[in-house]
């Protein structure tokens, strides 16, 4: 399901125009950008949690050149699936097509 189809489905279910839904979606992305940038977790009940995690810097060896590299620290955005969705997925048919 791509973005367009998702927007259309949500718009149809809400009885609003796709433009409105687009705007709301952009607002959601904006909230995630600012709040996760401040290292806050965003919790969506029944779906999961968006949680930024700090990864420490580390020394890595480039396998092709054999050179050692210092990889800088970074903050990666992770997602933790809620228990409810997890148990539902367990019994679903799953990603055979993806």
């Amino acid at each position, binding site marked *: *399901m791509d*973005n367009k189809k*998702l927007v259309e*489905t*949500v718009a149809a*279910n*809400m009885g*609003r125009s796709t433009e409105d*839904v687009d705007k*709301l*979606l*952009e*607002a*959601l*992305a904006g*909230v*995630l*950008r*600012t*709040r*996760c*940038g*401040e*290292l*806050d*977790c965003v*919790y*969506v*009940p*029944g*779906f*999961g949690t968006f949680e930024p*995690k*700090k990864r420490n*810097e580390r*020394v890595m060896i480039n396998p092709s050149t054999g*050179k*050692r*590299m*210092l990889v*800088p*620290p970074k*903050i*990666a*955005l*992770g*997602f933790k*699936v809620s228990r*409810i*969705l*997890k148990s*539902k*997925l*367990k019994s*679903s*048919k799953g*990603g*055979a*097509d*993806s």
Partner: protein
Amino acid sequence: MNGKITFVELVDLMSKATSSAPLVCDLFLRELFGTVSQALINGESVKIKGVGTFKIVPVKSHKAMNVATGKSTEIGAYNKVTFTPDKSLADAVNQPFAQFETVILDDAVTDDDLAKIDKESAAPEPVMAHEADRTEEPAIQPGAAMADAADDADIPAAPLPDDLPEMLEPAPAPSLDDLIEEVPMPEMEPAAPRETHPVKKSETAAPTKETAAEEKHDEKRPQPAMATPVASKPMLVGRPIDGPKVKHAPEPEPIEEHVDDHFYRPEPRNAYKPTAEQLARQKAPDRRWLWAVLAALAVGLIVWLFARGGGSSEAGANEETVVQADTVVEAVDQDVTTDTITSKVVLTTLAEKYYGSQWFWVYIYEENKDIITDPNNVRPGTAVVIPPAEKYGIDVNDRASLKKAQRRSWELLR
């Protein structure tokens, strides 16, 4: 920082960002994530612009060892969700560290050197951290904190050269990349005295402030200016990211409870009109009598036809089946109550209203399983059938019945 944003807060933030009613945002989020979950359950992957891609990946059944007992167990196949953040979102989240690049270490830097640096930066720094915090407390300038980040960026890589302040002073705005490039050179003197840090900070603050400002100009994201210093703070002293000190703690967002009536009044565009079916049901009581009379007449007719027997029996039989179907429908209709789910009325409130306890929502759900996919997220406007209390043995005053409902609801929501 490091807080958890609940659904209510998220709705509030969104309604502020879009200046639309909280109710609309609430509904939107429910719909959005409901749709995404449903798609995932169907095995589809979902891409949301500006957020990322959710994919469902099947995991084969595999053996695993129980760490406590050492016994190997078989873990059955299951599906897991992977999330890849959108590039824009990932960059925005990583913004505090965006300035750093991977550095190739010189051969002369040995593991021992790195270990030594780690040890040195680990030992004295907790004290330093507090000092730094204290000295900076009064001046909450984004530039100052940025300077710290720049200062400390060097520490994990290699000790600070002694001549750093001099090096920095003449240049109006030394770029951070220059600093980083300097770092791994082996001839650098190990471990600049830590005590010079506070001094250096004040010196480096000015030039780097400009860099910080420049950076901010470059990136035209709607990121609030203070996000950068706050997030880069933990790195400064190599503390874990959930460090204790929150300097620029964002002022707590007041969670307004929009209890105002007009907020809950759905907008006309958004209003769920009762469906034709519902309307028909509302009218049903008037018609019921008519049906009953008709049915009685029909039954009388059939009896009369049967009494007469003969050629018309076939037609009579047909009519009878029709009539029977009608009476069945009627029988079901008579003791069925329906109600409509709205944004304020959900299964539990209905259960409370009809049975006296919210726990009995499970039975309403079971009665309407075919229309309700997710009991946690029933679309407003859905008409649900309220089963008669006797059908499931519902009795508020009976503890066993209540317990049963509770157990059932835990099972459903597990």
